[in-house]
């Protein structure tokens, strides 16, 4: 009795549906990113001409190479870092709403910055805010991970809840710090918290670039395991994946790169959440392809957001973090309504 198994084992196989590396998507997004960088570097309060730049005009060169270019490239790196962290958290936690900010990493960074400001450290030691923010991010990562850990197992739901609770705690810390801060310091801290790329330097670019390369290398090396998390941790474990090890490596690398991005730029929200979803809507690939695609798309998004934040109310600037949030929230709500 064969109810519905038809055809013999040797019957023709359908044309195979292979999905090799998504080279086309990568090349396309890389070109778009380069175009966005070129566009953003050439537009600003002072208009620059490419001809003057190539001719070697000193002022043009200074504005382009010392101000615009580091800022634009830094924007691209921050976008890439946040998107990479976002896609990693979403894959690890099997949660489409996971993102470095929801997990409290950015709150920790902001607390670090606020503490530095409140006790006058920021005035006495110039450049202390980014390292303090980075420390804060690392502390938050450690705390959220310890809170979520039960025996040998890290529970994704507890991880998200711990992030939520820690964020509330960090808000309190920030408010207290601001209440204790002198007026002048307060403005600077607020500006930082809203996200700004105003004082971008090549040293920041190098730091973030190195970190991003290391992060990508680590994540690519666990990508074949990490993508299996989509089917649940037990399924991954039964397929020989060292689930706890992969989880810790993924979580820590994604947190460190977030901490570095937040430290140099302040809080630029929604990139980590939105970009992986956008890329997934277009290509519907697994983590192995989403990782590099998200990096490129995230870079493009932040470069364009930074450009808009500079030119919308010239010669003043809008905070880029507020800008990405204003753009991101409606888009996210739309996404939420459309998803089942």
């Amino acid at each position, binding site marked *: *009795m*064969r*109810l*519905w*198994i*038809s*055809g013999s*084992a040797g*019957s023709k*196989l*359908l044309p*195979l*549906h*292979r*999905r*090799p*590396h998504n080279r086309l998507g990568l090349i396309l997004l890389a070109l778009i990113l380069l175009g966005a960088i070129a566009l953003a570097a050439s537009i600003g309060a002072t208009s620059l001409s490419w001809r003057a730049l190539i001719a070697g005009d000193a002022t043009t060169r200074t504005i382009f190479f010392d101000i615009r270019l580091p800022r634009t490239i830094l924007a691209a790196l921050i976008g890439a870092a946040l998107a990479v962290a976002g896609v990693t958290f*979403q*894959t690890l936690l*099997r*949660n*489409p709403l996971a993102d470095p900010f929801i997990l409290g990493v950015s709150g920790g960074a902001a607390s670090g910055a606020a503490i530095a400001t409140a006790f006058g450290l920021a005035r006495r030691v110039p450049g202390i805010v980014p390292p303090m923010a980075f420390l804060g991010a690392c502390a938050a990562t450690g705390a959220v991970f310890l809170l979520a850990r039960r025996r040998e197992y890290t529970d994704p739901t507890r991880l998200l809840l711990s992030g939520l609770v820690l964020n509330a705690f960090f808000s309190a810390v920030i408010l207290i710090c601001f209440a204790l801060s002198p007026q002048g310091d307060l403005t600077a801290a607020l500006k930082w918290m809203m996200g700004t790329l105003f004082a971008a330097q090549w040293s920041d670019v190098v730091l973030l670039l190195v970190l991003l390369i290391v992060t990508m290398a680590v994540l*690519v*090396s666990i990508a*074949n395991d990490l*993508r*299996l998390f*989509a*089917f*649940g941790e*037990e*399924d991954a*474990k*039964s*397929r*020989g*994946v*060292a689930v706890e090890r992969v989880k810790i490596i993924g979580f820590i690398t994604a947190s460190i790169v977030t901490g570095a991005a937040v430290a140099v730029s302040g809080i630029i929200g929604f990139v980590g959440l939105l970009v992986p979803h956008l890329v*997934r809507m277009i290509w*519907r690939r*697994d983590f*192995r392809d989403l990782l590099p695609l998200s990096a490129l798309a995230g870079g493009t998004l932040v470069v364009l957001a930074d450009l808009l934040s500079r030119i919308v109310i010239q010669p003043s600037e809008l905070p880029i973090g507020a800008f990405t949030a204003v753009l991101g929230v409606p888009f996210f709500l739309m996404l939420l309504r459309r998803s*089942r």
Partner: protein
Amino acid sequence: MLEVAEVSYRYGEVEGLSGVTVTLDRPQLVALVGPNGSGKSTLLKLVARVLAPASGEVRFEGKRLRDWDGKEYAKRVGYLPQDPDPTFPMRAIDVVVSGRAPFLGRFERESDADYEAAAKAMELCDALHLADRYLDEMSGGERKRIFLARVLAATPAVILLDEPLAALDLSHVQQFSLLLRDVVDRTHCTVVYATHDLNWAAAYCDRMLVMQRGTLAIDAPPAEVMRPDTIRELFGFDAAAVEAGGRSWLVPRVP
């Protein structure tokens, strides 16, 4: 082939499994039955290497499970958890070919041979025509077949399925039970599946393992299990045996 020897497992203070011994040594369709919380899932997870026993040992091909390399073991023993739905929409073929993961190197992508294996597994499950469809657009029965194909894609010798018939309607329960019979007959692997559907399990399986409060109560051919008195004792269920189509079916006795 596979020996479970005096295996126990605890969930914190709660005893999950105590002193279970069972051997799988030839191609068979084995139904794992028992009331809720009797340890069916726990036993499957221990054999799938998802959990490690508190005491006792599981050996496969003479080697203890913890001495096996994870990927090497996964090539030989496949496991389907109760709720494996992917977080984000995926094409059926991508789901099935992901079953080849244990065969891939760290940076390796699926080759033509992997897609070939995936297509063969889908054909075996009569699901090849679903290759391009997205999982979230399928019916429960179609999804189950895709997930079975995903396990089969790794061509394992032992397949462990945790309640694959849950949430299927009457006709799909029968079709899927029959499909499992077919898989065993055609691929000569051993399939162990947890189920609450005693009648269909008895109709197609070679052997029944009945769990009760964390222990293995009965390990016998279905005909020995499917007796009203045995069922009353094990499940606390008042049943009568009815003859139909040349076999005996258990039906509830209505007071």
